[in-house]
């Protein structure tokens, strides 16, 4: 099974992934990224903050970027009409 490395990139910088995780395919790796974004944003939401500006870069063992998953892709966001979400 190929090994993928999930780098979190957000306003605070980058969190490197030294260990990596096995996944069957690119789409399985993308699902890990989506699940992880939802889990991390959910935890931040409990503290009253939602920041969807980050992304996860999925890299191979040579650290070439294979896929990028933006935080915003992980959610279907609905806001009240007329509200601004700057």
């Amino acid at each position: 099974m190929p090994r993928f490395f999930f780098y979190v990139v957000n306003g605070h910088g980058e969190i490197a992934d030294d260990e990596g995780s096995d996944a069957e395919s690119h789409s399985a790796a993308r699902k890990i990224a989506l699940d992880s974004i939802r889990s991390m944003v959910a935890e931040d939401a409990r503290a009253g903050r939602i920041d969807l500006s980050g992304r996860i870069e999925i890299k191979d063992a040579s650290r070439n970027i294979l896929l990028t998953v933006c935080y915003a892709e992980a959610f279907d966001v609905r806001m009240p009409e007329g509200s601004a979400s700057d």
Partner: protein
Amino acid sequence: MIETLLLKLRKRDVISAEEEQALRDTLVEVEDIPPRQTILRRGETLHRSVLLLSGLMCRYKDLRDGQRQITALHVPGDFLDLHGFTLKYLDHDVMSLPASRVAYARHDRLTQLTEEFPHLTRLLWFSTNLDAAMHREWELSLGCRSGAARAAHLFCEIYTRLEIVRQVDGYAFTFQLNQAELGECLGLTVVHTNRVLRDLREKGLLDFSRGLAVIHDLERLKAFAEFDPTYLYLHQTQR
């Protein structure tokens, strides 16, 4: 062979020479388990219980979609399924993490032990009660603690348990599970687990990488995790 079990029990009570011999006579059969091997499956009829001698093992439950929750970690000196002596089958699976060594206690031999050694029986009962206390603390973590505090709490617990069986080197200890497995203990995805470990490292509390944990500031780590070892029943008393 059963020195870690004796260290664990003697931390909590006095064990006589006769009781020690009875334990030695009960735990005879030894087996080496390769890494990541499920040795007990839910529903299997049990005729013996398993004591961990070296390595690291876990109890887990999973869902059809592949999500897995590790419900307990076991360090040397722990019975993985002493509760199986009365339950006769388990509602969960038991798996090795790194290569591990176990010893078996046949249930008919344990029955004999309960008839001949009532105090030792109470100590074995204590150890299943202790497992339940740890489950309650993990529930509190999963339900209420933040990801970082959950991880910090787990490292405090494992450090404390390993110290009893003399498996720590100062504030460092081997803890051979990967980040995905650590995440399965904490109810976090592998990427979230990596973020949480980065938080703890940046706070100067703890480093965990490639199976080695180093605690930099135990008192601050305990405070951050709200770790209170009362639930580990660390005092010696007559039970």
